[in-house]
């Protein structure tokens, strides 16, 4: 399923659409405060754009942009951002995930610090969800044997 097919229409359209989809996904992540959306939805859209890239350009090209090792790394890093923000609150003598205590570090009001904490958390969720969706799709569509391994 992840080998490049020379369907010119699908290829070109997806080539043009992918940057916009990705930007839209980032918009959804960043504007979760004001409109529907947030880290999870944006992450899924971002992951879907990566899957689109994989489906249209094939794994040989997609691996230049998003190799599977990076996907595994990012899925760790995403949750680490989340849990790390939570742990950071422990070091400023708050409870776990108490973003209000970060106000002293960020030099803003507590409510604003909570808002920023939410933003950071959403970014972490977005990272994790994107890379996990991509890696699950890669595993399921190849059955776990990546094309580069098969050549041996």
């Amino acid at each position, binding site marked *: *399923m992840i080998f490049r097919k020379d369907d010119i229409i699908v290829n070109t359209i997806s080539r043009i659409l992918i940057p916009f989809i990705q930007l839209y996904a980032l918009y959804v992540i960043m504007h979760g405060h004001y409109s*529907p*959306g*947030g880290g*999870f*939805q944006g992450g*899924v*859209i971002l*992951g*879907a754009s990566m*899957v689109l890239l994989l489906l249209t350009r094939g794994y040989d090209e997609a691996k230049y942009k998003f190799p599977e090792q990076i996907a595994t790394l990012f899925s760790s890093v995403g949750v680490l951002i989340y849990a790390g923000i939570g742990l950071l609150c422990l070091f400023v003598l708050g409870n776990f995930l108490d973003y209000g205590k970060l106000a002293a570090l960020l030099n803003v009001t507590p409510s604003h610090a909570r808002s920023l904490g939410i933003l950071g958390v959403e970014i972490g969720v977005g990272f994790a969800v994107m890379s996990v*969706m991509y890696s*699950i*799709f890669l595993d*399921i*569509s190849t*059955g776990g044997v990546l094309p580069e391994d098969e050549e041996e």
Partner: protein
Amino acid sequence: MILPFDLIIQIFVVICAVAAITVKDLLSAVMILGAYSFFMCLMWAQMGAVDVAFTEASVSAGIGTILCIAAIMKTTRRTKD
């Protein structure tokens, strides 16, 4: 009070659910499941749960269907029930 719009969507949801489990081709079943998810998401948007509807549209109707199709491509479309 039941709005006609609601009623239509609900009927479609039930039809899609029944069709998804009765149809004898897995690829069709998965595509119908995608349609089911989409109707479900319309229903939730109608109820004011825009966030959930958004998530459902991107997850179930999007990634979920893609994953199912990938798995079916990797396995088989045939089914006896």
